């Protein structure tokens, strides 16, 4: 009787010559095609978004204006149109790119660190910390408006970092493993959200403004928001994009990662600090925009495999593109009224995500 196993035990290592006809494996690296597709998606959505709005600018004239800016030529736009383009639309689109990229990259990092595809940037209390801080500021200082002052942004930024810091302190005191940290995040989030609700109830008249902030919003006053969040976002995303291989290593567990020559505790701390900085920066200018940090890295993983060397940088591009598209819909679906962008990201992302999960499981 023939042995039906495809690989009889005694032949291990013996079929080397027959295997040579196979294509040489390369390992997962970021390929130019990944970047090109991401950049193309980002460029198309950015251009369409810049052209979309109440004032009709025309794509030929906008392209001519871009050319004029680059070459120092004569602008085809009136002064008012140029202001609409450069002080309203372009900063808003750039902010959408930055916030989307930051949330997607930090989401990917959280998923890698916690070895859990359901992790998102708000897992460790960033959202609840920012929510409580902003609520305190808005209720304590009624003059504060969410779109025109840096105070709410500073409060959100510090609150987000404070929430993560508190989770980190509690988690570390209870144990070194990541599961403890996640549980600490759940406890801290629940407590801070309860505190935020309590403070909110003290000043019912501020409910609507806080509610709008909680749903996420992208509004700009010129380039102010872009310039204030750019340094933190840039630093964090550079660090996270460089950490793809380390995230793959963390996936082997702490003992194996240590046996392979890294210090997993330090690496995890570095990545969480960078991801929290990116999240806090995004939250400070855009409030709580859900789903981007969960869905985008997951879609990239389904399409291109599980290596974070690819997931992180590609999520950067598609996170930016996703939020530019969502912002465009938020501005146009009920124009001239504007929908909270968090509603759009959940409305569009959730069904698409469910469909993709369904089809991928069936395959």
């Amino acid at each position, binding site marked *: 009787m023939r042995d039906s196993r495809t690989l009889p035990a005694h032949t291990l*290592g013996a079929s080397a010559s027959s295997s040579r006809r196979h294509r*040489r494996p390369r390992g997962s690296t970021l390929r130019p095609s990944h970047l090109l597709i991401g950049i193309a998606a980002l460029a198309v959505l950015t251009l369409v978004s810049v052209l979309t709005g109440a004032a009709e600018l025309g794509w030929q004239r906008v392209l001519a204006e871009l050319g004029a800016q680059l070459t120092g030529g004569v602008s085809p736009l009136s002064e008012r149109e140029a202001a609409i383009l450069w002080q309203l639309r372009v900063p808003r689109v750039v902010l959408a790119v930055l916030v989307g990229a930051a949330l997607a990259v930090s989401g990917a990092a959280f998923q890698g660190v916690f070895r859990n595809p359901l992790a998102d940037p708000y897992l460790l209390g960033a959202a609840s910390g920012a929510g409580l801080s902003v609520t305190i500021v808005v209720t304590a200082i009624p003059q504060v408006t969410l779109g025109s002052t840096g105070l709410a942004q500073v409060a959100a930024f510090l609150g987000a970092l404070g929430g993560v810091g508190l989770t980190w302190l509690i988690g570390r005191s209870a144990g070194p493993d990541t599961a403890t940290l996640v549980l600490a995040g759940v406890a801290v989030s629940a407590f801070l959200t309860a505190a935020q609700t309590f403070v909110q109830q003290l000043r019912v008249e501020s409910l609507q403004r806080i509610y709008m902030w909680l749903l996420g919003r992208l509004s700009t006053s010129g380039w102010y928001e872009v310039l204030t969040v750019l340094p933190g976002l840039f630093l964090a995303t550079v660090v996270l994009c460089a950490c793809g291989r380390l995230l793959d290593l963390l996936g082997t567990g702490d003992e194996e990662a240590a046996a392979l020559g890294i210090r997993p505790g330090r690496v995890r701390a570095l990545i969480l600090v960078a991801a929290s900085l990116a999240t806090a920066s995004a939250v400070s200018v855009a409030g709580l925009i859900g789903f981007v940090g969960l869905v985008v890295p997951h879609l990239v993983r389904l399409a291109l495999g599980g290596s974070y060397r690819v997931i992180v940088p590609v999520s950067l591009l598609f996170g930016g593109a996703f939020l530019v598209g969502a912002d465009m819909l938020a501005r146009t679906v009920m124009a001239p009224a504007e929908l909270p962008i968090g509603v759009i990201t959940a409305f569009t992302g959730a069904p698409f995500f469910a469909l993709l999960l369904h089809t991928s499981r069936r395959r």
Partner: protein
Amino acid sequence: MSLVELEGLSAGYRGSPVLSDISATIGAGGWLGVIGPNGSGKSTLLKAVLGLVHHGGTVTVDGRHVSGLRQRERAKLLGYAPQLPQLPVGITVTDYVLLGRTPYTGLLGRESTGDLDIVVEVLERLDLLDLAERALSELSGGERQRAVLARALAQRTGVLLLDEPTTGLDVGHAQALLDLVDELRHERGTTVVTTLHDLTMAGQYAERLLLLDHGRVSAEGTPGEVLTTDVLGRHYSARVSVLPLPDGSPSVTPVREAVRRPLEG
């Protein structure tokens, strides 16, 4: 070839001692089999050698104190395959084996062509080339064990620490894996330390055996000296029969106690 020496090694978790005063010498290119009943400290011994648990005493490889080495330098000396490896979700076999080159790449850098050459050679040797682009999650148990071994071999270390490398494998695949480790040991002079539950296999492949019980060395010597009915009965609380195989190595067979059944009718 690497000479490994353990001197007064003790280890534990959160203040609970697991190992006490372990001393052993594994000759360059030798194979030490660590055996013992469940909870005797076999896996902890390997982790202590790697510096993964709090430990006292000394571990030297070719006279170099392992505890004094930086983590990356340690990873260039000691390759490790755990009993229950955590496999990163969704990554391919090639990506996983490439992680074995970590000690030789920059902390944030990429692997060189030379690193990839080594990985391809290891994949070829372990018959994993056909599976190189497959996700780890799609592999069978035996294929995964080979991928884990491949990752450890890609480290190109003089010492290989394998914790229950045949866990979950049928007898054919278990033999094939241990044969391969033995071949590599002879080709490259790799020093091998394995923990093994299968005592007959431990006796066939390891040159010397270290029997641990309650974290202490209970017996040490050649398989013929350690695998005796008396020693195994004492430390495993087991009824076994030990008979010599044609090559002289001992074969350990569990013997069931006679069952007394009531007569029918």
